[in-house]
């Protein structure tokens, strides 16, 4: 098991909605990154003072109506929106990304893949921005391989929004190779203006160990916030 610097005092919340699926995997990734995962329940507008929040993948409420549409109205999301406005780092993965868009924390929307099928593949990505709270450990332009698994993965937004995102360097990840879902500008992930909130369709929590994923490229997203918290809480204690 990869031993990594742990920061016992860094606590990262992982939300569970009815229908969340990759919440256990996000919690595992948080633990691997050296932080303590804290379970956040959809019905409580309470974040228990966590240092950062992960909105995990899955099919919250079955993705009925629209992916993320019903989850976006849950009490916990209101709390997340408020915390984000105070600068708390928030990571939305897949369904989590869809929820953050539906909740208005991130611009644009995610719609049915252009190919109309669910797509599960090991996806090559380029890290376009290494300045966000979650991507600071990557070097700009780095290429990583992370699983993508989604039905509503095609990022769309108004032309003005896209210009803004491109102009402000808020496109965090882009698909490489043939487009998996027809996303505008090959967008796989974007950030909020302050770079604290990041949403991405691929699943970094499934790329933390080559045994169970295509790579360990995803772990650095989680390490980034643990490190940042470490700077706040003082030096990291290195334990297995």
């Amino acid at each position, binding site marked *: 098991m990869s031993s990594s610097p742990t920061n016992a005092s860094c606590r990262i919340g992982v939300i569970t909605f009815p229908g969340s*699926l*990759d919440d256990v995997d996000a919690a595992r990734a948080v633990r691997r990154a050296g932080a303590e995962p804290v379970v956040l329940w959809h019905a409580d507008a309470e974040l228990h003072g966590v240092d950062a929040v992960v909105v995990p993948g899955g099919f919250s409420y079955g*993705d009925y109506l629209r992916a993320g549409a019903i989850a976006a109205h849950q009490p916990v999301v209101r709390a997340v929106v408020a915390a984000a406005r105070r600068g708390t780092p928030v990571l939305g993965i897949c369904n989590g990304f869809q929820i953050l868009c539906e909740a208005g924390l991130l611009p644009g929307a995610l719609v049915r893949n252009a190919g109309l099928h*669910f797509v599960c593949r090991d996806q090559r990505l380029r890290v376009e921005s290494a300045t966000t709270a979650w991507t600071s450990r990557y070097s700009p332009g780095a290429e990583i391989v992370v699983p993508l698994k989604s039905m509503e993965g095609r990022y769309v937004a108004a032309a003005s929004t896209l210009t803004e995102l491109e102009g402000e360097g808020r496109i965090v990840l882009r698909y490489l190779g043939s487009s998996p879902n027809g996303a505008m500008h090959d967008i796989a992930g974007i950030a909020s203006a302050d770079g604290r909130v990041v949403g991405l369709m691929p699943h970094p929590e*499934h790329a933390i160990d080559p045994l*169970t994923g295509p790579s360990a490229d995803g772990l650095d997203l989680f390490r980034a916030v643990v490190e940042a918290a470490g700077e706040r809480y003082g030096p990291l204690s290195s334990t297995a």
Partner: protein
Amino acid sequence: MRNPEQPQPYRELGLADDEYARIQQILGRRPTDAELAMYSVMWSEHCSYKSSKVHLRYFGETTTEAMRRRMLAGIGDNAGVVEVGDGWAVTFKIESHNHPSYVEPYQGAATGVGGIVRDIMAMGARPIAVADSLRFGQATAPDTARVLPGAVAGIAGYGNCLGLPNIGGEVVFDPSYAGNPLVNALCVGAMRVSDLHLAHATGTGNKIVLFGSRTGRDGIGGVSVLASDSFSVHSGAHGGDHAATRRKLPSVQVGDPFTEKVLIECCLELFGAGLVVGIQDLGGAGLACATSELASAGDGGMRVDLDAVPLRAAGMTPAEILCSESQERMCAVVRPGDVDRFMAVCTRWDVTATVIGEVAGGERLVITRQGETVADVPPRTVAHEGPVYHRPVRRPSTQDTLQASTPERLQRPTTPEALRATVLRMVASPGLCSRAWVTDQYDRYVRGGTVLAQPHDAGMVRIDEATQRGIAVATDCNARYCALDPYLGTQLALAEAYRNVAVSGATPLAVTNCLNFGSPTDPGVMWQFEQAVRGLADGCAQLGIPVTGGNVSFYNQTGDVAILPTPVVGVLGVIDDVRRRIRTGLGGAGDELWLLGETRDEFGGSEWAHEVHGHLGGRPPAVDLAREQALGEVLAAASRDGLVSGAHDLSDGGLAQALVEACLVGGAGARVRLPAGFDPFVGLFAESSGRVLLSMPSEAVHRVRELCTDHGVPAARLGEVHAAPVLEIVDVGVFDLDELRAAWEGTLPALFGNS
């Protein structure tokens, strides 16, 4: 029936005259509508196994005490359970949802997954993975373009939404499945040995709680209609005519995977809190089945009040409520003192739950509606003492002609050019091409424990992060072999599934099956069935692993033409450290390539004879289960000592197919010289069983050869892995991996659209 003179529609419900007479004799009176409906659905082929029972007993008779050692539950329970070490138990089962998937491919396949997952939950386990074994008509047939994409999307839509990784299966095409597609879904679950739950209603006064979806008019009578003789007549009458089939089916069940996902989490919380005495899933025959089975597996007495059942539709009759196949429902037996806590857990998960009755003294299942008794029956007579048929069994006269038409006379490629062209044609054939178009629609990563999935020979998931213990599964069946010789064909299916598990480094432990056949009223079909059961049971006895459960699907035929006999075999294995798993792809450049096992001139039922000559005849390849076992031991040792860098079993398409897949999956080229002794065609395409392709670093070769010698497994050096993206087969030709990949991956997208 208000008017006691009026004749009852028992025939329309699929009951034969003598069955109806027996019901009256059991009750000592004319049955009520509700009772008639209950008996008819529970005595249908699908629920009562009336035609297969006498044959299935053979599984029990051939299971020795030694084979039972690890078995905690077996045939007769919702699903088999085996102990896999460290206090872990694993449960797995395959079930068919064939006809519904023909009528409405998306919903039929989706609810097929939902049903098998509830079976696994009913054992007290957490479902951890699914696999799907699929068969369709000719790949190019228009109706296949309707059924395949729909069924695949349904399995994806339901399984992905449940958060269960899909780790394996099959896709097979054959004209005999046109109008009779086979959708067999497998689910694996894991639990602590101590958490095993069995379905029984004990303890007078204990409450019966129905929880999950509301009950509506879904698939009413579906089960009996699907499997009753009355249906075969109809499907015979107008074969592929959907409209007619639909009229026969009152309605199609629609799945609600979100509700099922919540139901899973809710059940596990209930199990964990110790709030469940007994549990039963609601599948075919709905409440009629769940209540009668719970009661007869317990003390026998039960009272149920249908007024308490939450309904979705207005004006449902007692019979409809009892036989409704509304999905995503479970039934639990709960101590009176625990009911409030039980309800609290359900509320937390927003799951509808209601007390609908209680375990009662006496031996009768009494069901009331609006104060009136609508059913009063001895539950065992409904659930277990259904009719037992000894259907006529006769080896068809055509069997000899079939076996006499051997593949020897078929024109074989001889020149290198012709061989090279044949390799490319076979790789691109619907039977052998990449399944990625299908499997890329399935989430194989969710739960974070998937160590192997498609395109590897077996699926493997970790069940314990602390110890790295894991399990592996594979399903297989070559129905052409079974047509040529159902006994040997079924043993070949067992051998391949066993081998697929073994090449992953896991040790095979247990077997499940899904026996898909034509009409049991056809003595020839019953002969195939009997032979298949005996072949599988005898084979398992020889391998020393038990059949822990299974499923029978009859009436898969159009007119009097049955599908190829298709006994799908699933094998479960355990590996104590998943980090030692063996992958299907070739290892690194410089590694040596070896072929284990013996190659013979065997082409009966082969993919080559089928694809190139449309020929089916002769005899299937020879089976040597002792050899399979020896191979398994070699591979287990190789995995334990980390000797090999890759292993791929040889099956359909022979060595050529295995080499191409190993190169493409591993992303490495190879240089190969075919073993001396026979012509290259046989070396490339023969489908002799008991063979494995290995890649290993040269340092390991000596040890592996020792292992092979010790276990009496022949081993021949084929060549080596090299960096160049090229597969060179000496005296045959050179293939660019890009060329091979284009051929292998291009076929299904071309047929079913680019996704």
